[in-house]
């Protein structure tokens, strides 16, 4: 099973140089704020997925005053490395330069959780669509959908949608706008179908994860932004789209319905409940990736305990997927009973040290 066994950061965020060796199961990073705990998680995410959950600008990850950062790590038997001198980057697998990211990206999958994910519950629908995409874009599997098809559908759909909306906004002739109906609904139908299947597979996993953490009942449902076939939905919405100068139906209006104990979660859930739901959704994605890919993704969980009460904290740790490797940050581990195979590092006077 592939684990991240070593991670080295150079010129990354606040670190001039840092070596970190996570354990095979749960690895905790603790210590005061602003020491770089989250940056270590970000580095692991960047190394495996070539993108940061915190920023889309590689420049922002360069240490202040520097010009480049380098990350290297052992994932399973493979040595991954990325040297980034914005705007250029060099990727290597076992020292061999990779011209295209495709080969590199099949190495590792991750599931990230951060405090911003509480907005999955009561924030804009875009966050919930992104959650579904994060699952769709990391699936290696056959049968439901695979990452390459998903990525292509998403890209084609977005391009067709932007083109079509531009033509609508500029009030171009109908023939030019309708020329995009087929490419739009073709990729749109595929996306609607994939997301529907994803939600149906995620629902029991999310429900199970939530029950394990808090005993509450979580139900998720797919709220598609268009009926299928999308071509017909487009025709029905024609007068509305002309009036509003914008495509009115399609996956760009998809949402995920969340019900906790039978009540819509967005409007009433407390902070602790929101954290529980968001974690349950992320653990569901991890469970699905594990089932389809046959390998558990690396869990990168930033400040997971937040406002959770001690009961939920213990239940969360006990409910961590038993086959997954996780790196978790928290300011303080006081009073928390850690599973026996956990490893703890703490930011002390002389930097990161094993506790």
């Amino acid at each position, binding site marked *: 099973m592939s684990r991240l066994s070593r991670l080295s950061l150079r010129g990354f965020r606040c670190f001039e140089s840092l070596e970190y060796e996570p354990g095979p199961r749960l690895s905790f990073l603790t210590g005061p704020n602003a020491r770089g705990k989250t940056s270590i998680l970000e580095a692991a995410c960047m190394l495996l997925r070539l993108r940061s959950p915190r920023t889309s600008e590689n420049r922002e990850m360069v240490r202040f005053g520097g010009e480049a950062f380098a990350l290297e790590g052992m994932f399973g038997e493979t040595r991954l490395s990325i040297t980034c001198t914005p705007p250029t980057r060099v990727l290597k697998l076992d020292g061999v330069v990779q011209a295209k990211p495709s080969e590199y990206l099949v190495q590792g999958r991750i599931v990230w959780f951060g405090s911003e994910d509480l907005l999955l519950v009561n924030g804009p629908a875009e966050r919930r669509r992104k959650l579904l995409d994060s699952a769709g874009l990391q699936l290696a599997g056959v049968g439901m959908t695979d990452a390459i098809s998903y990525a292509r*559908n998403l890209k084609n759909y977005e391009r067709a949608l932007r083109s079509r909306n*531009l*033509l609508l906004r500029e009030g171009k002739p109908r023939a030019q706008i309708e020329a995009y109906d087929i490419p739009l609904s*073709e*990729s749109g139908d595929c996306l609607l179908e994939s997301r529907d299947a994803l939600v149906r597979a995620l629902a029991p996993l999310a429900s199970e994860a939530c029950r394990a953490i808090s005993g509450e009942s979580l139900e998720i449902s797919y709220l598609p932004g268009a009926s299928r076939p999308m071509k017909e939905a487009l025709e029905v919405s024609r007068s509305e789209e002309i009036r509003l100068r914008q495509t009115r139906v399609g996956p760009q209006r998809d949402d995920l319905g969340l019900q906790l104990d039978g009540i819509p979660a967005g409007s009433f859930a407390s902070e602790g409940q929101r954290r529980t739901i968001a974690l349950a959704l992320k653990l569901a994605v991890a469970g699905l990736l594990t089932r389809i890919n046959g390998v558990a993704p690396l869990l990168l969980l930033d400040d997971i305990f937040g406002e959770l009460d001690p009961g939920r904290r213990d239940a969360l740790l006990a409910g961590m997927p038993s086959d997954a490797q996780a790196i978790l940050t928290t300011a303080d581990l006081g009073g928390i009973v850690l599973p026996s195979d956990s490893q703890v590092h703490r930011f002390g006077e002389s930097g990161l040290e094993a506790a």
Partner: protein
Amino acid sequence: MASLDYPESFRELVKQLRRLPGIGPRSAERIALWMLRSPDAKPDQLAGAIGRARETLHTCRLCGFFAEQEECSLCRDTAREGGELCVVETATDILPLERTGVFRGRYHALGGKLSPLDGVGPEHLRIGELLERLGQERPKEVILALGADVEGEATAHYLAEMIAPTGVPVTRIAQGLPAGGGVEQADQVTLHRALAHRRAY
């Protein structure tokens, strides 16, 4: 003391070579040296060929392919008269199709594809010329041989719509599995299209 460099005329040659697509500073210098020093190099012939090509090469008035007269050799070939008309995105798409030896009609290069995000609308393409040709030449069929990306698709649908009133039948080249490719390697969209456009044996 000024640092030593090649003389001005040589530097100018390197500078011009560097402007060519895919040529970096090192390659430009190597080509320039070879051009001037190698007994095999024929720089005068090269310069002459570039000049002549520039002077004699035109765009065919009808199809948009490369021509040395007002019309290209394909459009002057009367054996191709009244057959099918194959619409492609750019003039360079014509040769690969022609080399298959399967198609014996005429071509029409649009000079690009519709792409609102890049500011390309129907008025930037040779669509008016296409409709005019359809009226004059009355081909048996118009075959759309455009790319299968989002813009190629949109352009094909737009053209089909525009051509419909002329009454000339419109077809589109087949899409689906690449030759030699298995079903299990194909992605979702390709299979969707292959199934949707299946045909009877």
